[in-house]
């Protein structure tokens, strides 16, 4: 090996000074265009509303860096795309650092301090690393091209469910061209880099300090060997190098200049979006500040700068599009298209020097870039989109904030309007008298404590469906019996309970939500209890995550964790082994929202059930279709429903006996879907509580009552 300091890469060898000057002029121009683009984008985001992301910037930054470096979110549910993106990312980053190193040596340290380090052994290792980085980049890009061009993945199909082909903004071929231009530009830059390296080697093959160390650039060297074998002379190499150098250089500078104007900007916007992610984006919806006159988002400027950044972070990967239950049944909603529509709208209105008049900033409607009310009302707020988004786009709060505006205007389904009025009047969505809330207790052989009158250990927040729906009342009674038998000191609020408000808030009726939350918190404040339990994941979510902002902080658990504890502690007797083949449906608000995946599965194991998971389970569970207030809105007649889609998924499990749920609304939705999909008789839908009751010996309370002659 030739160990001399003269080993380095030639940069401007044989260039006329004017050519070098020209290159620098173009380089600075590219940087200027880049900076201008960044300024325009930042100005766009700054036109959004203020928001306080909270938390320390440093911890947010480190978490973001961790997410980016690990590619954790990019690889989820698509490990191959994740791996390819990782190759592109690391290849690109290494090549970027490499180029920056040359600049540091040649343009900064050299001219200013006369210090040069980019030669000798350091250069050789540098050369090797960059050659490998280039291979990684090209490899990743080729996979992405194959994926786009030949795999025909449905999530990369830009067909819009929320537009007709005749609508002016239906056509997404612009995005498709941009996708391909992006891939081709990068691969051309990388590939010409190798060719350039190869022809340089051929051109300088006579120089030992170049040719002698050629294998430190293995890809370039192999190509050079091939060129020489093919008969390329040193001089020919030199000529090709001279021309290709400009092509490669200009293409790279063009790429840099265009970053803020193209999808390439996701390098920055995705990182920014990840950095300002809200881990409870869907679980805890934003409050409307008391001094704010308008509720919800009407104009593009009503979104926060963070939401505007979200819009630009989207890379159209289609994971939300794939996960969305509304999209799956043909409803006019794709979370991806909501984000892209608003992005197009923001680009159109907020990138110019002056802000257009308010009338042109209205995001509601059917015009280009606007979001139609049918789209907004199709959302189940199930959080599947937010959960899977690799770049932390938070669709649910965006949709709910737009719904708040629709609610203010009364632009909603008549049945929903009626239900909201009913909830306001009666405190429940069933339109029943408050006095009837605890009517289900009358069938019990024991009295359920009134927590308003005496202290209890466990306060049971029952919720509307569990209280009033006749089918769910059976489950509610079974749970009461379980608690009583286990000797739990529990009580309920009787008519003091109001709808917890989870779904009212997700509908966008923020004022009514405030009334409900404040009323429940006021009731609870006067009572003595240690913790809250509920069988309703919806109530669980809002009490757990949203009541604290209204001054109600409690220890609350879903019944599955309490029941598991009682079983593990022996308070609930060892159950009979049921030996059933079951599958478990994770309720959105228990699973995805609050990560309660394990307790119900552990209970099923204790019951001796064989759990066969559906393809979509845990974080990827598929909404029953009732969320976000959709349970109060009729589904279009004849259209497919999310619950039907789910039933078909369960039905393919061979020998399935029980479809287990742990949410009152799920029980209602899926028992109905079981019939309408023709699966009745094949398997049954049951609440987990019912399975537990079935596996236990006769209830002690019930037996005691039956044996007592006075009963």
């Amino acid at each position: 090996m030739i160990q001399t300091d003269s080993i380095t890469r030639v940069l401007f060898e044989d260039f006329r000074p004017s050519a070098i000057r020209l290159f620098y002029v173009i380089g600075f121009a590219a940087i200027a265009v880049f900076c201008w683009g960044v300024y325009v984008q930042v100005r766009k985001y700054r036109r959004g509303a203020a928001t306080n992301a909270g938390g320390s910037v440093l911890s947010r930054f480190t978490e973001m860096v961790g997410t980016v470096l690990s590619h954790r979110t990019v690889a989820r549910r698509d490990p191959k795309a994740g791996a390819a993106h990782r190759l592109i990312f690391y290849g690109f980053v290494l090549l970027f650092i490499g180029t920056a190193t040359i600049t540091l040596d040649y343009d900064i340290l050299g001219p200013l301090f006369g210090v040069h380090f980019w030669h000798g052994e350091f250069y050789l290792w540098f050369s090797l690393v960059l050659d490998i980085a280039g291979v990684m980049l090209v490899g990743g890009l080729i996979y992405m091209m194959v994926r786009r061009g030949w795999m025909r993945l449905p999530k990369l199909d830009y067909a819009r469910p929320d537009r007709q082909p005749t609508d002016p903004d239906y056509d997404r071929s612009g995005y498709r061209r941009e996708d391909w231009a992006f891939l081709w530009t990068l691969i051309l830059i990388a590939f010409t880099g190798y060719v350039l390296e190869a022809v340089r080697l051929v051109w300088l093959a006579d120089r030992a300090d170049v040719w002698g160390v050629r294998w430190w650039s293995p890809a370039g060297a192999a190509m050079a060997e091939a060129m020489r074998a093919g008969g390329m002379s040193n001089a020919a190499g030199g000529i090709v190098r001279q021309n290709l150098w400009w092509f490669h250089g200009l293409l790279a500078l063009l790429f840099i200049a265009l970053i803020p104007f193209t999808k390439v900007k996701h390098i920055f916007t995705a990182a920014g979006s990840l950095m300002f992610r809200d881990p409870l984006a869907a679980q805890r919806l934003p409050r409307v500040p008391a001094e704010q006159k308008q509720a919800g988002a009407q104009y593009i400027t009503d979104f926060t700068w963070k939401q505007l950044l979200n819009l630009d972070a989207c890379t159209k990967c289609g994971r939300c599009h794939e996960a969305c239950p509304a999209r799956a049944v043909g409803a006019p909603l794709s979370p991806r298209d909501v984000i892209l529509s608003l992005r197009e709208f923001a680009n159109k209105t907020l990138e110019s020097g002056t802000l257009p008049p308010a009338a042109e900033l209205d995001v509601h409607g059917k015009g280009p870039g606007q979001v139609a009310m049918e789209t907004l009302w199709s959302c189940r707020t199930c959080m599947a989109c937010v959960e899977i988004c690799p770049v932390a786009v938070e669709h649910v709060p965006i949709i709910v904030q737009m719904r708040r505006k629709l609610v203010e205007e009364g632009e909603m389904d008549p049945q929903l309007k009626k239900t909201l009025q009913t909830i306001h009047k009666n405190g429940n969505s069933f339109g029943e008298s408050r006095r009837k809330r605890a009517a289900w207790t009358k069938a019990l052989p024991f009295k359920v404590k009134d927590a308003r009158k005496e202290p209890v250990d466990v306060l049971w927040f029952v919720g509307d469906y569990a209280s009033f729906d006749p089918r769910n009342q059976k489950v509610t009674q079974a749970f009461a019996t379980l608690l009583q038998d286990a000797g739990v000191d529990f009580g309920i609020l009787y008519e003091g309970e109001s709808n917890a408000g989870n779904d009212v808030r997700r509908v966008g009726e923020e004022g009514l939500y405030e009334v409900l939350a404040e009323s429940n918190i006021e009731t609870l404040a006067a009572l003595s209890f240690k913790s809250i339990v509920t069988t309703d994941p919806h109530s669980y979510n809002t009490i757990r995550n949203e009541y604290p902002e209204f001054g109600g902080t409690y220890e609350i658990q879903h019944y599955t964790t309490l029941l598991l504890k009682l079983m593990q502690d022996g308070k609930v007797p060892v159950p009979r082994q049921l030996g059933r083949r079951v599958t478990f449906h994770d309720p959105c608000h228990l699973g995805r929202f609050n990560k309660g995946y394990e307790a119900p599965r552990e209970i099923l194991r204790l019951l001796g059930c064989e759990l066969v998971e559906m393809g979509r389970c845990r974080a990827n569970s598929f909404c029953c279709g009732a969320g976000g207030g959709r349970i109060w809105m009729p589904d279009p007649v004849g259209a497919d429903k999310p619950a039907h889609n789910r039933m078909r998924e369960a039905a393919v499990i061979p020998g399935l006996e029980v479809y287990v749920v742990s949410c009152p609304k799920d029980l209602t939705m899926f028992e109905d879907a079981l019939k309408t999909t023709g699966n009745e008789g094949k398997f049954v839908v049951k609440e987990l509580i019912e399975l537990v009751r079935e596996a236990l010996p006769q209830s002690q309370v019930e037996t005691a009552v039956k044996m007592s002659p006075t009963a």
Partner: protein
Amino acid sequence: MKILVAVKQVAALDEDFEIRADGKDVEPDFLVRDLNEWDDFSLEEAMKIKESASTPVEVVAVCIGPDDADEALRKCLAKGADRAIRVWDDAIEGSDSIAIARLIAAVATREAPDMLFAGVQSSDHTFASTGIATASLLDWPHAAVVTSLTYTPGANTAVFRRELEGGVLHEMQIECPAVLTIQLGINTPRYASLRAIKQAAAKPIEVLTLEDLGVAPMHVGESGSLSRVRRMYIPEKGRAQMIEGSVEEKAARLAQIIKERAGGAA
């Protein structure tokens, strides 16, 4: 240009209600109160006229009732009414629909609106007479059960349709000012969001007394009414009875009942 909309805070029965000790009304604890459904439509009709008018139109809601009737008025303010007036005095308690009409007419005289809307009836007492009685007391033209209305603010006349028996419609023209009682379904009432209702709480409700209106206490309440509630009761139900026993016994009992009834009629 002004439209006066007469509204009522009605009472709906809760489950398992009880009759008040004096036997003339339901125990108030068992009543759920709300804005009368018909009034939702008459207010909406006024709001539609206001919103489509080229000249300013003032919509004023008026309600005769105690403090808790403010809730009904707030709903009207939340939906966009410009002002709200509530009339109350303890002497008004026990008024029949004509006495209430006397008060509304007094408010109309004071406000001098171009139109007065009322619901066809209230869902609790169902007299369907307050609106028409008001017209009579004002000596204004009137029309009941209006199902569609064409009216340009400031015009001397309005054209409307009313429902008649057998699906027949009456299209009529009326001189203004007039009293129209509005039927359900004439429009789609807007939704008053809770936020709007809360914001309406900050708007003033003008409270008028009998003195303000120049109505003597003897002209309202029981003394000013020509009809009075004697008692309120739940009619006996369940007159059917199961006949038990063998076929012969059942037949004999049936024959006996028929004879008793037939005998009574004869």
